[in-house]
């Protein structure tokens, strides 16, 4: 018994490390090794179906610069990401402000807004695609009834003068991503001291002035965090666009994650696909640094 309890703090630390070692190895294998392997792929020439290979340096990256498909996908991804993020944040803030007021059924509404988040991606896309159908879709039906249109809008096949296909994908994405934004911003709103609003009211401030000089400054950091996180997530997002359009028609909605998938698994160019994903990683690293700086400021 005496031997069993003989042990310094260092012994306990070593025991803790020993017990967590399997998990550390697993994380290294599942997360760190694929990243390193991906970088290795990007500087070699590896194809899925034909023999070949060997170190090529930055050739794959140079090819990307002259590849029109990559440039188109990059631009599409920028439109997709910025369209989603900068629609979601104002709408989310507006809904959070509404949910922060003392209204009847507030708790019920706060529960209901989670529903889009809970719905699986496939079910979401399947339902929205039916609503977007030109002949039988809900949107065209309503727009015709209210007299806004006379002929059916082809939501998932019109790319000029406005890329309605991309717009449709963004609408679905915003619908699905709103709950997270609302929850975060609502938490931020509830942390603002209500006394500040009372003082402002006494001083004669309007609702807009209260929003501009109290609410927004208090939420500034939280909004920035949401924007950065959502940018990182949506830049990498695959499922909504793939399920909606598979990147089509043509290349109208081919964003970078879809291009990676097509390059790797349809064109079988593993190294080229790795080069695209390393490029994406570097772009997103900028946002990651911004996020860490922002959150550490708060500490």
């Amino acid at each position, binding site marked *: 018994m005496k031997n069993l309890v003989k042990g310094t703090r260092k012994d306990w630390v070593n025991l803790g490390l020993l017990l967590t070692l399997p998990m550390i190895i697993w994380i290294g294998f599942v997360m760190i090794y694929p990243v390193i392997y991906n970088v290795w792929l990007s500087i070699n020439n590896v*194809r899925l*179906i*034909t023999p070949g290979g060997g170190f090529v340096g930055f050739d794959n990256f140079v090819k990307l610069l002259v590849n029109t498909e990559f440039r188109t996908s990059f631009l599409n991804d920028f439109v997709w990401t910025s369209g989603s993020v900068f629609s979601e944040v104002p709408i989310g803030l507006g809904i959070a402000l509404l949910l922060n007021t003392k209204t009847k059924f507030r708790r019920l509404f706060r529960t209901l807004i989670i529903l889009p988040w809970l719905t699986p991606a496939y079910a979401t896309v399947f339902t929205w695609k039916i609503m977007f159908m030109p002949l039988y879709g809900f949107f065209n039906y309503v727009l015709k009834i209210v007299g806004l249109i006379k002929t059916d809008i082809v*939501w998932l*096949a*019109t790319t000029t003068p406005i890329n309605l296909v991309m717009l449709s994908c963004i609408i679905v994405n915003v619908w699905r991503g709103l709950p997270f934004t609302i929850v975060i911003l609502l938490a931020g709103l509830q942390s603002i001291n209500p006394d500040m609003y009372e003082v402002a009211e006494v001083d004669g401030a309007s609702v807009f002035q209260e929003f501009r000089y109290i609410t927004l400054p208090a939420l500034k950091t939280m909004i920035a965090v949401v924007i950065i996180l959502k940018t990182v997530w949506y830049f990498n997002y695959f499922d909504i666009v793939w399920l909606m359009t598979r990147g089509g*028609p043509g290349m109208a909605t081919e964003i970078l994650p879809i291009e990676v998938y097509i390059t790797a*698994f*349809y*064109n079988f160019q593993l190294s080229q696909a790795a080069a695209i994903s390393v490029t994406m990683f570097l772009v997103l690293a900028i946002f990651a640094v911004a996020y860490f700086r922002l959150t550490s400021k708060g500490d």
Partner: protein
Amino acid sequence: MVKNGCKMSSSAITKIQTIFITAIMIVAAVAGASWYYLSTSTSQNRVKLTFWSMDTDTASMNSFNTIARSFEASYPVNITVVPVDWGVAQTKVLAAVQAGNPPDVSVAGMGWALLYMKMGALVDLDQVVQDIGGTSQFLSPSMLYENQWNGHMWGITYVSYPNILLYRKDWLATKNLTVPTTWAEFENVCQALTGNGRYAYAQPVADMNGHKAIWCWMMTDNATIFDKDNNVAFDTARTVETFDWLSNIMKNYSPPGIASYGFSEDDLAFKNGQVGIIWGYGEMLTDYAKNFPNLMPNVGVMDFPMKTQLGGQIGNENLVAFNTSDPERIKYSRMFIEFILKPENIVGTYLKNGVLEAAFPSLKSLSTSSEYSTLTAASPWNSTINYIATQIMPHETTMSMAFQGNLYAGQIEGNGILQKVMEHILVDDWTAQKAVTDGQDIFKTLVASG
């Protein structure tokens, strides 16, 4: 003292618990790894095979399981039949091959056998072909084109799905129209049928059926992807003519948003009475008969109207055996494929449980077997089956293989190149020439990249 004694006891017990839990976890991990190893290797002297089936419908899965059990009764083999959806099959097989863990036998789509062969993933089926009577048994040259390379057979077709056009007999009758047999007649029919909220024609464009529908029309004008010498020859006058004509048909006589149509939208439009002629398969007839009985009496089947020749696309489903480096598994894989092709199995079980007016046997011995004659004679679709088998199938080819096989059919299908060409015309307003030239560049890049 007592207090200290209690503290010492609880800390000791915590240590013992920790060590005990760690030991259990290690034992569990070792046991799991051992179970996995044992379950994938030969055990109890029975060879374990996996068979991946892309025919994931209940009837096909039941048929394959019945055939597998029957094979197991005669040989020391355990076969696991695994359903794999068509949409992800090629990617999953390629990933499995790269991981060194392919199935033993698998269904393969059009041209997939040569794609896998290119990776060195398959074993040849020369002996199986010899055993079933040689290559002269195949009912269509397309079955050789997509499975034969360098004098070896890398896959064997077990069923074929000819593409057809389904049309509303009542619509044509109302307008006193006859079934069109040429492009000009087809365009006249489309013009007559379109109007008052109705459209004449629909076909898939956006999904993987899109390239099949487009290839059907290309064949009716002798437009190809590869020429007789297997060089890329997509950008030709005939190809431009086909895309130009077909896109005009779709722009003028198809429902809005046709570029976003997949097979299900195509089918839905026909069922809802929005469209009078659609691209499809024979199995749609069974669906209509069962679920839309009022529609069925008005549905007819027709061949693709020709411009310069009769054409169409036939979807062959093939069986391949993978190189698992285990001689026993390879031996039984080949034997299992040969077993599936016996009349009592492919006809007596698979086709009997399936859709006779959609799936057609691949071998002469099967199509002339007493089992097949009995089945078709008893089927309510007997006249349709005969019409398709004798009037449509003989001149249909497998996608991208008009003259011979090529190594790129699987990638062409996966990349959706023909669909992209059509989408550029329908959505981006490119001219047919511009879109076809762009398509030619994509094909050349594909071939150059191996």
